[in-house]
């Protein structure tokens, strides 16, 4: 199936305007909660600066901290695996499952496993994973990818959830009561937790000096999964590393406030060593990260702590929905991470922005997201991933604007004004004119007025 480009998918999303308004309002509400929480902390901007610097330092000393982390984790009795890419990551997880001959597997939210396509891979091997984050379970039932990294089912309304649960959990048809539906999910998931043999989690922060790691959830599902299962696999991108436990005091204060406006995530679970009789594995994944680290203009994108504040504030994301980004990580951060993974497939994403800069302003680790979007555009054009009609038009425009007399001629000759402002064509096929009137052409340009009135 051909993936739709962002603009096309967004247009489809917007064609249901009331739903778009609802999506926009819902996420704006989250952004407002974030504003309230962050404006309530006088030291907010200082915390962002610290977080950014700690990440900067960690990314410049990855060799040292990752090795230190591995050593300490091993000493704690944890098995550490290294995966160069998504395939290797999936293979490692599969091998552990095979070796232990387990069937009942639960997973709390991990964007990394989405990025690696782990569920699909394991499914193809006959192994089904139960996602235990409520939102993720909902989209899993529907065979859809998450549309938001913190709120995976934010594109769905109560009625959609009710229909889905009716189909999969046999809840009452038409009962849209959130409490009723949540209760049904709770009972369903409890059974899965109790029966689980293996639990997969993500990692929010991995601490080099202790070899421990922290997983943040609001539902406690990471804990319930890992407490019942005899095997715990934690999957992490290598950029999750921080040097010391004390640095958590910066990140944990920023993460939940940025994500949902909560002072702290409901559960910040610290994992250090396996329980007696339990196996604990950590899979450390590269999957394009070292390549991104080598791109001077884009390496900062690896500071991301996946709070999704940039999604919630993005006026384009709020009106186009996560699926229009056709990648595991949508939104502004996805648009600067994804071209690194596949330039051709994701060449549309850095253009899915007005460069308004709100993303960079909310980002708790101060990633210059909108500047990177701009820089990706230059790279994508240079590498030839931009379609030729755009190219011819803009090159023609550049030529015209470099030659003042031609520019003036184009402006005068009404017909050729299209060369200069190609979007100002008065016909229905023109995207400007579809829903907007053109500016009324004045009788003279400013320059003409100036020559007449100011210079004699």
């Amino acid at each position: 199936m051909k993936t739709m480009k962002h603009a096309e998918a967004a247009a489809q999303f917007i064609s249901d305007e009331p739903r778009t308004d609802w999506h926009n309002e819902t996420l704006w509400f989250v952004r407002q909660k974030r504003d309230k929480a962050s404006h309530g902390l006088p030291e907010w901007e200082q915390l962002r600066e610290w977080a950014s610097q700690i990440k900067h330092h960690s990314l410049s000393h990855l060799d040292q901290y990752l090795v230190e982390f591995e050593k300490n984790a091993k000493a704690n009795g944890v098995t550490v695996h290294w995966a160069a890419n998504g395939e290797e990551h999936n293979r490692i997880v599969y091998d552990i499952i095979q070796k232990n001959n387990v069937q009942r597997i639960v997973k709390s939210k991990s964007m990394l496993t989405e990025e690696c396509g782990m569920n699909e891979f394991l499914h193809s091997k006959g192994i089904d994973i139960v996602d235990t984050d409520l939102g993720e379970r909902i989209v899993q039932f529907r065979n859809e990818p998450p549309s938001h990294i913190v709120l995976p089912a934010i594109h769905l309304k109560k009625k959609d959830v009710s229909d889905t649960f009716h189909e999969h959990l046999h809840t009452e048809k038409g009962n849209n009561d959130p409490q009723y539906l949540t209760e049904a999910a709770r009972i369903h998931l409890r059974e899965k937790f109790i029966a689980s043999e293996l639990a997969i989690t993500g990692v929010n922060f991995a601490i080099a000096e202790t070899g421990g790691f922290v997983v943040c959830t609001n539902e406690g599902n990471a804990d319930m999964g890992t407490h019942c299962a005899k095997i715990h696999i934690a999957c992490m991108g290598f950029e999750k590393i921080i040097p010391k436990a004390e640095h958590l005091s910066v990140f944990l204060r920023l993460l939940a406030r940025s994500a949902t406006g909560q002072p702290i995530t409901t559960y910040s679970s610290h994992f250090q060593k396996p329980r007696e009789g339990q196996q604990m594995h950590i899979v450390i994944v590269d999957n394009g990260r070292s390549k991104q680290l080598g791109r001077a203009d884009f390496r900062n994108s690896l500071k991301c702590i996946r709070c999704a504040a940039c999604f919630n504030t993005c006026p384009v994301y709020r009106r186009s929905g996560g699926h229009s980004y056709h990648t595991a990580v949508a939104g502004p951060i996805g648009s600067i991470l994804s071209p690194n993974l596949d330039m051709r497939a994701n060449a549309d994403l850095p253009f899915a922005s007005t460069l308004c800069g709100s993303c960079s302003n909310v980002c708790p680790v101060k990633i210059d997201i909108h500047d990177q979007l701009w820089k990706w555009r230059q790279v994508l054009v240079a590498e030839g991933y931009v379609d030729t009609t755009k190219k011819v038009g803009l090159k023609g425009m550049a030529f015209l604007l470099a030659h003042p007399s031609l520019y003036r001629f184009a402006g005068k000759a009404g017909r050729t004004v299209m060369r200069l402002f190609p979007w100002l064509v008065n016909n229905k096929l023109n995207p400007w004119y579809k829903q907007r009137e053109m500016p009324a052409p004045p009788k003279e340009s400013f320059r003409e007025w100036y020559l007449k009135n100011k210079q004699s």
Partner: protein
Amino acid sequence: MIHSLPNYIDMKVGLFIPCYIDQFYPQVGIATLQLLEKLGCEVSFPLNQTCCGQPMANSGFASSSKGCDKNFVGNFRGFDYIVGPSGSCVLHIKDHLKDDDRPGEAEHIRKNIYELTEFLTDVLKIEKLDASFPHKVGLHTSCHGQRGLHLSSMSERNLPEFSKPEKLLGMVKGLELSHPARTDECCGFGGTFCVFEEAVSVKMGKDRIAEHAANGVEYITGYDESCLMHLEGILKRMNSNIKAIHIAEILNSNA
């Protein structure tokens, strides 16, 4: 009328009129020029200027805008200040103007180019204006001027509040100012975004307009004509009574 002769009378100002203002909104250029002259600046308009190069660069073609850059430097070297009524064009020059043959002159321009309201506030340090505009006006805070040039504080940041354009509008007699509910959300213009992402662009514009309309405004104003052109296009299609007007026109008006 000049109340008292200011001491910046000798300041040589190069007037930068972005291409789409030159071609479609000459009245904005005229208002900017008259306003600066009223305030005692010696203003000239270099006749061979075209464009700042932003439309190309924001579409990924920064490397193709070298000729445009050179032309800009050729036109605007030798001025004490360069002033233009457009936040995003000014920001583009500030961030990206390059000329390998004349790097010093390019740098001088980058450092001394100002958006109009910024120039009035920070350089001329205007405290009062002889202007009157007895209407209900909504301020559209365009992103590049705000988040790029810091013309006003930003809702995302935890920093003291201020607004240069608002301060100036406060000096206009009879003007009743309002803000949309989301004080600084983008209008969706975004350069070529407005055509390549038509659906999102228009939806964003409609949403901005709805918030201003809820305040009962007669005019939507701002310091970026490109955003206003986009909003105006939607307003006209909707047959709305609300009009878009550049802040220079208000600051220069004497009704």
